[in-house]
């Protein structure tokens, strides 16, 4: 099967993730959508790596997996911090900072 289909699929996943980040109200779902965006990048990297026949893309994808985990940990930490302060877990109500 042609590897270009995997790239097309990754583009779709990336767009789904981006749309989710922009429209979802729960920060948890926003984090999920961020993961979708990052993993779309991984899929593209691996597809290209296969297509080009060199391993650089696969190594890159492995490192991205680690980094993405770090990001989610920080995000969840902040959400737990907000939950403890009994702040609304809702992106639309985070409007304390404006002007």
């Amino acid at each position: 099967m042609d590897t270009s289909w995997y790239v097309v699929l990754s583009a779709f996943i990336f767009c789904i993730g981006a749309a989710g980040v922009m429209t979802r109200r729960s920060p948890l779902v926003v984090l999920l959508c961020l993961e979708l965006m990052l993993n779309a990048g991984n899929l593209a990297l691996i597809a290209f790596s296969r297509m080009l026949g060199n391993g650089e893309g696969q190594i890159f994808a492995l490192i991205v997996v680690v980094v993405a985990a770090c990001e989610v940990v920080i995000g969840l930490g902040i959400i737990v911090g907000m939950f403890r302060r009994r702040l609304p877990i809702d992106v639309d109500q985070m409007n304390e900072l404006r002007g």
Partner: protein
Amino acid sequence: MIELAQVVQAPKIDYQGLAPLFSTIGGSLAVLMIGLFRGRFVQRTLVPAVAALALLVAMGMTIANWEAGDSRPIIEGALAIDTLALFMSMLFYVTGLATVALSLRSDVQREVGAGEYMALLLGAISGMVVLAGAENMVTLFVGFELLSIPLYVLSAGYVRRAHSLEAGLKYLVVGSVGSATLLYGLALLYGATGSTDFRAMAIAIGDTVAVTDPLLLTGVALAATGLAFKASVAPFHQWTPDVYEGAPTPITSFMAVATKVAAFAVTLRLFDYALSDAQVQWGPALAALATVTIVIGNAGAIAQSSLKRMLAWSGVAQAGYLLAGVVVGTQLGLQATAFYLAAYLFMNVAAFAVVIACERVSEHGDGIESLRDLGRASPLLAWPMTIAMLALAGFPATAGFIGKFYLIEAVVAGDYAWLGIVIVVGSMISLVYYLRVIAVMWMGRFEVELPSFPPRRVKAVAGRSPEADARAQPEVASVAILAAAATIFFGIVPSPLFDLVSDVGTSFGGLV
């Protein structure tokens, strides 16, 4: 096993080139461990002192490594060392030292824990150093995240305050969207050029890959978008004022300066080195972004009543000026951007130091009102602020003027004369809000019209009169005075900085 050992060759590592990075990462681990000891001396004195020492050692080793010319590899195919990376690293260390001094008396250090605070700060600086020397997409991405992740935590440093948590989460979400976009762009660039190595990319473009290749162009666009998020280039700047306002002020000043320097260091390397042959394609696009950024940044700053928000919008506008130096893709543009980044550091550190000093004693917090009559109350703080504002606006005899002059020269020489006009018009608009700050400080008896702002309740530090604040916070005042003095010094005698940036200009052999 034996076969594997024959196939896998360990990369050549230049430990002398890597030494500054060891110093910051080692310092980060050391302060984390030292911070475990309770006790006033350790928390208040020892931890900041060790952090400052690590930065000073890194600075010394960076100076020892200084050598003009083409970039040399430190870790084969991952990290390189050249004057661009070294110059930017120096800027990170200077900002780091200023931030250590500015946070000495900050309550955020107590809330996070001094050890953790300094460890995160040094971690972010290590990420920036990696980013400035990245020779490879993988290293670029790791450096990018190593700089971002500690800053997400530090922005949310006031764990018990709603606005700080909100700033942290906003920064995390927007920053991660930026990283994901950058990653996807890098993936497409990898697909188009067949390599993650910048040198191999530069060779492939225009040779085996046409500059109009759709995969390449989409990759360039997405990578530029990802970097624009980090450098707060419009239209990807909306997070900037919110995060700058909500984050603890010492961290805001660090983010405003060091993150921008890092973002531009990597933008210069990616665009002027790896993608330099496609300049005809990305030049006009970046020029359009720069124009939009200058206009939006300056327009947004006018309506601000909080100093931190005003400086955030002004930082957006300054990012536009800096981007103009990247657009032309010439050696002159590279030099001008490097010069302006140094000037930008001094101007902003001076301004933020004064904001920190006033915010701690004023009931207005970081509102412009907190500066009212500062000229009479404490001229030692009012003068640095005045110099910083004039320099940001580009007044002669300040480094800001020389920097803008240099940028305009570069864009005109690179056939983007209209962009030079945009820079001048942007500076003219910016006088509205920079001069307002000066007026509030010095024209106490006259009513200066300020944008209305919602009343906020900020508890002033008890028992300190505003008259005494310059003496009560000597470290903040001295950071402000030193940074302002550097702004004036490099405005009148720019030749030492010129010599440094002309070395920086030789980093990429292929540039004209």
